[in-house]
């Protein structure tokens, strides 16, 4: 099997003063390349910690995490930054676009940090065209609707050809119609490009559209919930 994510016994402990909080208590799972997975769970279940760990924003306290063949758990800050840049694309609930930059500038940002000097604009343009915003490149975020802003964010996430796209409540700030459009866009990109898609959500309707649901409860995996539904047609 071609595993893009292999997590073994992930433990994450936060120290809040004297008290230790166990956000993750030994979670193990694997995700196949090209899968669409949603991570669900009530608040306090370790959902955010899981997303931060899988997105290489944070290191697990213990355990092993291999992302696209690279062991991430022991990396230093700069190595993690490099892994995020090359292998992870983020889509946030609140879009997180830089208001000073145009749509094109925002999409270019990961390429800048990749140290790319040539062909940056072309790749950013291609990504924006792929999300259907070919005619909005020079617009700034405040000149775009919420749905368009999220499309820019999706373009930004996929411009570096990442191994996984981490989407954190990608439709949370959108109305249901636009939300559906964004979900379709993400699913289509998955189908066309084969990029692994991981969606963190508490919306069952979103989870229904993914091939697989990972449920967390009190920092542990709910084993019954992790049903491998297989590829949707």
């Amino acid at each position: 099997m071609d595993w893009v994510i292999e997590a073994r016994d992930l433990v994450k402990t936060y120290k809040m003063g004297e008290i230790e909080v166990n956000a993750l208590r030994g979670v193990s799972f694997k995700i196949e390349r090209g899968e669409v997975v949603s991570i669900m769970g009530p608040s306090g279940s370790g959902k955010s910690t899981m997303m931060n760990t899988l997105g290489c924003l944070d290191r697990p306290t213990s355990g092993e995490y291999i992302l696209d063949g690279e062991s991430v758990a022991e990396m230093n800050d700069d190595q993690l930054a490099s892994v995020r840049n090359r292998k992870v694309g983020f889509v946030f609930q609140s879009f997180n676009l830089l208001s000073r930059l145009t749509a094109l500038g925002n999409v270019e940002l990961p390429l800048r940090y990749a140290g790319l000097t040539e062909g940056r604009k072309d790749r950013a343009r291609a990504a924006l065209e792929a999300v259907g915003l070919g005619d909005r490149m020079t617009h700034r975020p405040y000149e775009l609707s919420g749905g368009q802003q999220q499309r820019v964010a999706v373009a930004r996430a996929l411009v570096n050809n990442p191994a996984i796209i981490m989407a954190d409540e990608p439709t949370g700030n959108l109305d249901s119609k636009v939300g559906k459009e964004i979900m379709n866009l993400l699913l289509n990109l998955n189908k066309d490009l084969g990029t692994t898609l991981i969606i963190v959500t508490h919306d069952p309707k979103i989870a229904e559209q993914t091939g697989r649901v990972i449920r967390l409860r009190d920092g542990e995996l709910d084993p019954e919930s992790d049903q491998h539904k297989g590829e949707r047609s």
Partner: protein
Amino acid sequence: MSFMQAFLEALESLNGNKLRSGLTVLGIVIGVAAVIAMLAVGNGAQASITGSISSIGTNLLFVFSGGPEENQGGPPGRSGNNDRPLTIGDAEAISDSFAAPSVELVAPVIQGNSGLSFSGENTTTSISGVTPSYFTVRNIELAEGEPINEEHLLGRMSVVILGPETATTLFGHADGIIGETIRIEGQPFRVIGVTVPKGGGAFGSEDNAAYIPFTTAQARLIKRANRDQVDVIFVQATTAEAVPQAAEEISNIIRTRHRTPIGVDDFTVFTQQDFLSTFATITGVLTIFLGGIAGISLLVGGIGIMNIMLVSVTERTKEIGLRKALGARKKDILLQFLTESSLLSFIGGVIGVMFGWLIAFIVGQVAAATGNNFNPIVGMDAILLSTSFSAVIGLFFGIYPASRAANLEPVEALRYE
């Protein structure tokens, strides 16, 4: 990220908050402008004083009565009051070309202030009792009339040469007054000449003066305890290079005549070089003092930058988190914020240089308008010093905010609202 990109992004970011950037820059602008203007004024003062001292003549020496400052109150039983005054005999001894071969001309002078009057007009001016050599030594030329000669001296004649300012005060004009009779302290004096206007000098205006024969002054106008006493002896050395040699010869002659041991002279030989170095020291201290005060305002400007950068880092925590999520390393963020702060202070420095230049220019114009020969000099050294200092300040005060930004945890920063 390349440096050029960081530069462009910093420019974009500063442009995005124009008012705040402007106000932050203002601190540096004022600081740099103050440094530039102050140094320019200091340098100008130095040049102006140096120039007016040089105009006296480069081979001139002055001999005063009284020891140098550091000798005052030296050995017990000896004070300034016991100093033997300089006399006409000292002046004659100095002019001995065998004892003092480096001395060209000697001009003993006694000076006092007297009231002058001419048909109801009164003025008080400094009267100098001089010998014919005085005009050569001091490089004073006559606009009209004749100089004081040996005949005037021998006859103790009541003749006077007026400075143009004094003449104008008494007569309303400075020409065509030869042969008129004015009164000095009630005694009649015939005007035999008027000097060429020279403008203000280091010893007050030479245009507002009156010169009479030395012997006449000695006998009738300026009474001294010792009949032969003189106030100053002006000495012209043969060449500018011979000035130190002449000073040495003069000192030896007067020491012998006054019987003073070496090191406790009761007289002072002052050369023009001494004047130059004295004034250079004074204006140098002045310049450093002014520059130091201006430097403090530059420092305050730097603290302003740090303050704003800290606010900016806090405000943009989420942006920093996002950039890190997209793959920015610590040094990328560090570079970004350092570029911003250095750019702020650099822009401030450039504007400050122009502004300071303008201030110096205006000061020069005002001085010219009021008739002072004073020209502030904006030196290349001042420009380089203040701009590089302001860039260093931008870097220094940018480091702390930038490193704070660079060390933010991406998870924490992203969660920040």
